[in-house]
């Protein structure tokens, strides 16, 4: 049963992710991305990472993607123009190499995993929906990465302003 649900969810995620690339209209791509995120959230729930799953829905699907779609609509972006492909090398080398990489990755995964996977530490599952565990880890063991993230985000904000503001 668990395997069936996992296969179903990951199938949706992969098809939707491929659809992002195939679609020519940005709105369709954005909507496909939302489908991918929701399917991923389902997989997170299967892994007992309920907090991450909820965050995935609230932050990515809820906030960021809505913003994405607003921007696309505001810009009134139409369907992408087909540009004649000048670089044929990419087609002839890139595709086979990419398929080879995916094939190898699949082969490795099927060889390495015995179907058991890595056991989730049971203590972390039972602790109040593991939100408390995440909070504890963020402010003790991962305090430094947590703080560094704020510097990273600051740099990104500065960058957005430098790139977009009319006059500095």
């Amino acid at each position, binding site marked *: 049963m668990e395997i069936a649900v996992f296969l179903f969810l990951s199938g949706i995620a992969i098809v939707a992710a491929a659809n992002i690339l195939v679609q020519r209209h940005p709105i369709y791509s954005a909507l496909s991305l939302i489908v991918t995120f929701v399917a991923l959230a389902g997989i997170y729930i299967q892994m007992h990472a309920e907090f991450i799953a909820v965050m995935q829905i609230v932050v990515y699907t809820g906030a960021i993607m809505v913003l994405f779609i607003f921007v696309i609509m505001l810009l009134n972006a139409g369907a992408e123009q087909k540009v004649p492909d000048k670089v044929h090398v990419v087609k002839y080398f890139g595709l086979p190499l990419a398929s080879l990489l995916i094939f190898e990755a699949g082969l490795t995964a099927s060889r390495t995993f015995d179907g058991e996977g890595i056991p989730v530490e049971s203590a972390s599952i039972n602790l109040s929906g593991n939100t408390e565990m995440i909070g504890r880890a963020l402010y003790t063991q991962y305090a430094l990465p947590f703080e560094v993230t704020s510097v990273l985000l600051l740099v990104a904000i500065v960058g957005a302003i*430098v*790139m977009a503001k009319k006059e500095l």
Partner: protein
Amino acid sequence: MDGSLALEIPQIFPEIALSVFGIAILLLDTFLPKSKRHAATGIALAAIALTAVFTLGLVGEDGTFFSGMIVVDGFSIFLRITFLVVGALTVLASSSYATRENLAVGEFQALVLFAIVGMNLMAASNELIMIFLGLETLSIASYILLGIKRSDAKSNEAALKYFLLGSFSSAFMLYGIALAYGATRTTNLEAIGREIAAGSAGMTLIYVAVGLLFVGFGFKVAVVPFHVWTPDVYEGAPTPISAFMSVGPKAAGFAVLVRVLMVAFPAAYAKWLGLVWLSAVLTMFVGNCVALVQSNIKRMLAYSSIAHAGYILVAVATRNQEGVAALLFYTLTYALMNIGAFTIVSLVSRQGDRKTYLDDYAGLGFKQPGLAAALSIFLLSLAGIPLTAGFAGKFFIFRAALESKFVWLAIIGVLNSAISVYYYLRVIVVMYMKEAPDDWSPVAMSSSAIAVIALSVLGILQFGIFPDMLISLARSSVIGYR
């Protein structure tokens, strides 16, 4: 756990100081009138000086801090100093450039400081997550710096290309991190090493993880086959940023590569040695051979920087302490010569970065002998002519390779070094043997650019004629290396 966190804060004083000053520059810039905004350069230099004091205060420390997130040892302190030198020279070189090109000085200098924070964290990381955060801080700062000439199409192209390919390579690296975590249940480098040594990790997964991580770091340091972005990005970037990109992220990338390969994956040495070996040979040949036919000097220096990444990879392949010491020596001296060369390129290119072709250097030797002499020293050092730091650096790397029985790598390296002499000397020939064009306009100098050039020349000659001091410092930095 609770009280000790505060006690460990002095270990990251350098990064805190840089971040605080970066924010201060951004705030000040808003309130200062336009005519006084060049004050940012002075503040940035003060910040770097203060950070150097903090960093030197850490000398002698040896251990991991913040629950094993960062490691302070000789290796990371030496690299932090290297990054501060790179940062100081970049800040100096870009102050007059930013005025000339009418760029936002405050944001420019603040972003350079943030980029140093990223590099520092990379060098000191003991955790795959910290490495990723440091790398992203550096990357985002570089994306913006590359595109800071917003009205210039080439600068935009450089920023966009680096951004797209950089995000792509980050994704590869993240996948590698995820696989390493999946195989060992930890992201701590030392713990990964222990898990593998204990035999409790799936080795197939580890090999794939090492390969993917190599793709991620290989992109940052521009080794073949992950080098294709380099010439376009260096050509389009504001020239001081080309200089910065060719030395800063490269040194930081190699620092991380060395630490990850040696601390986390020594058990996979037999596998990654092949990767590094092949990539080193390809990188040296592709970089040097393509550089031979470049007519744009920025593109030539870009291919030359690819070739130099190949020499440094030879040092990585040796995996011994002598090799790592040679790597430290090489990254620092390479920073001096490349920033010096790019600074002169930026001066000669005049307003708008237009004159970057080889012919624009015709007659420079007669019109401005001092500038031409300095550029000659930088190019000779890049070529590895004796009495320059470039020679000493290559000598240490190839000797380390020979000591570890990598005879072929050393031979290929020396051969490539000989190829490279051609394209470096070609610039010197054009400067001294060709007549200046009739519509020659003098190259405008600025005191800050002269300072950069003078410091670089001094450094190259100092470390070229008396390399003992620096190499023994590098050796002692490696000894504490675990």
